[in-house]
């Protein structure tokens, strides 16, 4: 091939690989605008001079502290419960696992309000489990910080399960079977081989579930209510302030957006791959 010919060919090859019908650009631009313009709108509306004061008000700090605490606990619960579930779903050959796999996705597609209502009728005073707990231990779950954690775990768990399960499936069990022939007990295989190999998927799952728990609104307000310092997390505070003090609501929203962007930066692109896998 002559020197003059090759750059032209390269250019041609690149063009073929990247060719997108022009017609797609218009809806694509609209979609992008729909995602970004509201954020810009919020930024324009923000009173940056009062921002520090708004963010450090007592109500805001309560909400922030509560949100970080409950989202962190929920995320830990998601990991402790979700990782074993993901492995069982991916590896178990028991009949009915396929159905279970679909059931696990329920909180992902269910309106959170419905989830909250369901939790209320399970763990509320009249719910069968709630009644049992009330009678035996005197503990009432709804409208407590624990209820916030339960609601957040409920909605966030599928993100972790889907992310980890995809990775377990994609990895297969070849490494585990080799480890077993090397004399490793099942628990050793799990801790020394399975878990380390899952770390990337687990990391993205953790970030996604944390973000989902932090943003939880519907299930929380239904199941846990909105008591300042007890169950009123950041999103609930935003909702409450939206009527009382719009500037404060906007400031808190900005805080949530900053956290969301941090999550995207941390979790991409692995999160997307994990969910797909």
């Amino acid at each position, binding site marked *: 091939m002559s020197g003059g010919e090759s750059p032209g060919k390269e250019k041609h090859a690149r063009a073929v690989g990247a060719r997108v019908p022009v017609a797609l650009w218009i809806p694509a631009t609209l979609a992008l605008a729909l995602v970004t313009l509201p954020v810009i709108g919020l930024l324009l509306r923000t009173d940056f001079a009062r921002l520090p004061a708004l963010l450090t008000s007592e109500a805001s700090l309560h909400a922030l502290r509560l949100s970080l605490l409950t989202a962190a606990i929920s995320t830990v619960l998601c990991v402790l419960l979700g990782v074993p579930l993901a492995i069982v779903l991916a590896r178990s050959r028991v009949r009915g696992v396929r159905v279970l796999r679909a059931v696990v996705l329920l909180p992902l597609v269910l309106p959170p309000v419905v989830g909250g209502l369901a939790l209320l009728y399970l763990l509320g005073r009249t719910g069968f489990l709630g009644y049992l707990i009330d009678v035996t231990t005197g503990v009432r779950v709804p409208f407590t910080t624990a209820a916030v954690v339960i609601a957040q775990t409920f909605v966030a768990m599928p993100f972790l399960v889907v992310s980890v399960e995809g990775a377990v499936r994609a990895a297969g069990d*070849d*490494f585990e*079977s*080799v*480890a*077993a*022939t*090397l*004399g*490793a*007990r*099942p628990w*050793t*295989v799990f801790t*020394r*081989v399975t878990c*380390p*190999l899952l*770390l990337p998927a687990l990391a993205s799952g953790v970030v996604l579930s944390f973000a989902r728990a932090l943003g939880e609104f519907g299930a929380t307000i239904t199941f846990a209510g909105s008591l300042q310092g007890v169950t009123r997390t950041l999103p609930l505070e935003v909702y409450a302030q939206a009527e009382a003090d719009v500037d404060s609501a906007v400031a808190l929203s900005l805080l949530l957006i900053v956290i969301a962007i941090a999550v995207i930066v941390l979790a991409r692109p692995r999160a997307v791959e994990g969910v797909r896998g």
Partner: protein
Amino acid sequence: MLQADIQVNRGEFELAIDLDVPPGGVLAVLGPNGSGKSSLLDCLSGLLAARGTISIAGRAVHALPPHQRGVGLLRQTPLLFPHMNVLQNVAFGPASQGQSKERAREIASGWLADVGVAELAERKPAQLSGGQAQRVALARALATRPRLLLLDEPLAALDVHAAPAMRALLGRVLRQGDERLAGVLVTHDPLDAIALADQVVVLANGRVVERGPTREVLAAPRTQFTARIADLNLVAGHAVADGLRTADGSLLQGILAPDAVRGEAAVAVFAPSVIAVYPVGAGHGSPRNTAVATLASVESHGPVTRLRTGTPGAGWAAGIAADLTPAAVAELGLEPGSEIEVSVKATAVEVHPATPVIARGAQATRSDRP
């Protein structure tokens, strides 16, 4: 050492096989894809449940999980744990068996040196070539001191440069390593069996269709099925610079495989179709490998006619098969008892390393076969 009599049902597929491998012995399992070779290894290692009995070194293991069987497994791909470095990979087995961390590392270093990759200890698996990774995987399997080493196509994924060296290493480990170590080698390549195994079973559709000493089975397949896999002339002897010298001193010129070592046991391999047959004294030309032999049998063999020479006193040409067209056989007027001259081009003969058993058992066993 290894005695197994197992049956597996997996939907349509059924595997039923019995094996007996003595200490120090290596059994090659030959067969096409889907014949049950890999299922067999999974049963022996405990990764697949099977009915029947398996005993390794006198211990019944069929009810034990894989980690209690004392079996080493080397697969086509090395499957080194990607999150550990080479040394940690090899130390994993000894550590899992309860050795202290220090001791496990010592053992691992020893085995890495033994397979010739000591300098790679600190590397991550992603930084290794295919051949290096497979060596590390072998060290890892041996570091647990298994009594039985299962080899599942261990050379199939290696390139043409790495495979001979790995084959030579496996040969050394299996023959000169722990003499109590038995091996089961699954392969589709008859050359692997020649180089590494003293016994062969041929599997088809989950059944044993043929078994016996490697050389007998491969050189004179009793079934059409085996013949399709391995229809080769195998002449035993030892490797010399320009080919192979048989036990009775005749020289067969050929091309030495990269892993053949001069002076060591070897087998010359060539197909029945590359042999030319002439009446004695016809005065033909170039091929330097020419010998006189007595024709022992003439049989129709599909579209060709298979000639087989008699055993006594013909040097390398004793008991070999040659394929001719029926027309050529008629033209030459060949029938059992005829004296013929056979010749084969040196470039059509490959000289491969062989287990000593194969090299020794050469000419004698042939006459027993139908």
